[in-house]
């Protein structure tokens, strides 16, 4: 079973993502900021990271940047999910290391479809 880390400071968003992904048969862990996410990822790498931008302590950009420097983790795809929808923000997200930049709110089927694509799973 593929294992996904959802990183968001909002518990509601984490639950939302978790519900969608678990229903589709993925295993989901949660982290409330970039620091916790790094810690969890370093202990046990995940198959996909879904990252919010604006978080306390270490934001999504910071997380991705640091994450991409970790030899063991760096090849894993990451989706950045945020309410910031400007072209600048997207470029920032890509520069930091995101493989996909999505704008909230994401519909359940959208999230699932992208997750499957990045993980190479057939529906």
């Amino acid at each position, binding site marked *: 079973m593929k294992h996904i880390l959802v990183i968001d*400071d*909002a518990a509601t968003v984490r639950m939302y993502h978790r519900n969608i992904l678990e229903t589709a048969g993925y295993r989901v862990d949660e982290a409330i900021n970039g*620091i916790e996410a790094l*810690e969890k990822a370093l202990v046990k790498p995940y198959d996909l990271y879904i990252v919010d931008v604006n978080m306390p302590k270490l934001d999504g950009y910071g997380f991705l940047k640091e994450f991409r420097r970790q030899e063991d983790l760096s090849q894993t*795809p990451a989706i950045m999910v945020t309410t910031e929808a400007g072209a600048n923000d*997207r470029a920032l997200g*890509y*520069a930091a290391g995101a493989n*996909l930049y999505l704008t909230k709110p994401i519909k359940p*089927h959208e999230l699932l479809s992208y997750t499957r694509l990045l993980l190479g799973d057939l529906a």
Partner: protein
Amino acid sequence: MNNLLEQFLSEGRDFLQGIGEKLMQLEDEPNSTPLMTELFRFVHTLKGNSGLFEFPEMTRVLHASEDLMDAVRNGRVGYSQDLADQLLDAMDFVGMLMDEIEATGEISKNHAVPAAEHAQVLRSLLVVSESNADSNSDLHTSSEIKSEVNSLLAELPIFELEESVAEELYLHALEGETAFWVEYKPESDCFFKGEDPLFLMRQVPDTLWRHIILNNTAPILAEMDVYSNQLVFQLLTTAPSEELDDLFRYVPDEIKRIEIPALAFVRPTGNQDDHAIDIDFIDNALALLNKNNISVLTQIINTMLELSAPELWSSSVLRWVLRLLEHEPDNKTAQHALLKSLQTLTAPDWSAPAEHVERSDSKEVEHATTSVNVRKTEEDDELLQNFYVVVNAQREILSLSHKSGFSWTAGRLKSIASTLMGCYRAVNRECNIDNVLERALAENSPTPLLTWLEESLANNEQDVEIEVETDFSEISTSSESTPNALISDHKDAHENVVHNEAKTARRVDEVSTVVPKTLKVDQDKIDRLMNLIGEMVVAKNALPYLANRAETVFGVRDLSREIKAQYAVINRVAEEMQDTIMQVRMMPVSFIFQRFPRMVRDISRKLGKEVELVLEGESTEADKNIVEALSDPLIHIVRNSLDHGLEQPDVRLAAGKNATGKLTIRATQESDRVLIEIMDDGKGIDPKIIKHKAYEKGLIDETTLERISDQDAINLIFAAGFSTVEVISDLSGRGVGMDVVRSAVEKVNGTVGIESQVGKGTRIHLSLPLSMAVTNVIIIESNKQIFGVPMDMVVETVRVPRSQIRTIKHKQTTVLRGRVVPLLSLNQLLARGVEQLPNEDDEFATLIVRVHGEHIGILVDEFRETVDIILKPMAGILGGLSSYSGAALLGDGSVLMVLNPRELI
């Protein structure tokens, strides 16, 4: 309610709380960047959360708040009190919506207009400051306003107009002649007032569209209440505003009126089944629009119109495009959206923020890639669309980074390769990328991957009927149009990233293993646990009885001893359990303190006073019920201090005080009680005035008026009936409903006291038990019945010899340690015509209780043991008996009635 919604509400309230606190703190440090960042994040996250649900009203207000806070954070808008006020108002509104969602699961449509108003107010703050800062922003502000007006429209029902009528209205509206949408919701009892809503609506001139809604609530038609109005009327009119005002002058509250902007009339109509518009045509038209080649665009649209049946929906769209080109040549967004609607086959949503249409280039790629001809199942379709979104994202990453001389790490390249492999696999396509990746890694360059991707996309174009070419032209035009922006972004991004790196390195060490250990538990569950433990305490109390019976009735002494031993164990465990659950129920008084900064600020500003609020001991804990019971009395007291205690700044200065008054609220724990003190350095209470008022009110007689001490006089403000509106207006101290405060505090076994010095200030202190779950009572016997009396009221128990009882003015008294104590017989108090029974030495068992600060003796027949009980308020008819504070079950199963001496006497 589902879990997600519950989570949202619970987390949302925390955010609202946090936002309020941060705003307060910001008031003290208006330039604090960390505070603003935090504040922005709260608003931002809350907005994000609300977007997961269909709560457009809430999201709208939060969106506006977010934009405003973003501007504040970036220094585009200065922080001001007004701004804080508006934000707080908006957050109150959001809190109210949350309450409604919790109660009903949804937000009533009635909130749409207030929501829009809140948003508008917030945006106006944004607009004003921005146009000051930037003279170039006219365009921007007008689009902001437009998007706000448009969002109002989202609430409108879809009115269907003939295209010619809509065109007429559109042109009228463009010329500034307004059209109104009117909704009339007559009261249900309006027929009895002689009103005829239909007649009224028929008087509206120039009605262009009308609609009537029947909200019949009767389950069966036979029960329909024909004389209760169940109709709602809506119409669209071009009548002048004054005329409408005049018509509806008697029912203004039942009327909702919205001015309709021109764009709202742009609604294509017609037959949508047969959409013959060719995708090439649409692309061509969009390209011409982008190049601003209007003459050719007009030409091809006219040609297309000649070729198509006029009643088609698409023809209607094209006619509207022509009208927009003619009348609003600069509104490219709207023109673009209309042309796009030919692809999506849904009318443009004018209520969506205008910027949305501009910024969604990436989304447009999705649409463009879906050839209208290729209609597979929807899911496949979506997967394929998304496939291109993801692939194009990788392309963007590879090429953008390439330009800006980005330094590549192996991880970045690998992650892109693995993303691509995943994507291709998910749509069942070959993806032989391994070699390419190796080359890229060797060169540490994205170029091999980019080249491979371009080639792969070019090949795929032949495999699938997809208009990839159009995609790319669009992508390249959009990226060409802003090359500078992208490059500078990259610099920013780079700096930002470097900056973050440093932070990360440090913080990873700092915050090593912070795992939240808090559990949020529903209060019902705790209450249930509490009840169960209460029952267990009672059940446990049965064991000593059992032991007694074993010994006295069955004569098994050993068993009796064993039961007693076992009882000791169960007793200990039960007490620990009780203790623990008490701890769980404990909450800090900060729970109620936290609202005071805002309240004090609001009220003092309204009164034009300057007040410094000092909160102390916020972490002091007490049982949840106690803390909650404290809330209203405290608010009352604080209000009084602000209203009547603290003076205006000029008065204070004249009295030689600091212009800013000081209000202190302090909580401390003293053994098993919580003390709350509310102190102000205001003008204090003048006992003379109190005395006279009390005399006028008939609360004291003339002799008392002369003799009463100043302190006793001040205490009179707690007397029932002391405060009236008339008193408030001219009383120079306080006294607004202080008797209410007293009774609320006494209800939870608390006491309240006051000290005041004229000119210096007032101190009010409340003392409350830490917990109210378990009550220690003494059992007494009277007239062959047993009763409980709460121990916290009992000062002592004494036996008073009959000879020591004196009758003064028909009242029995005795002297106890040099103090005269009035005596009352319980039998008399309970209206039983029986004398109390003395013991063999002719002494009466007497409970000395403290009531309102006075010692009073209650004569009973005999004292018994003291017990811990779980006091349950009495229900039903018995609940009305104020002389009892409740009842409890005893270990032997009998019911103990617990007296309430305060009310009894």
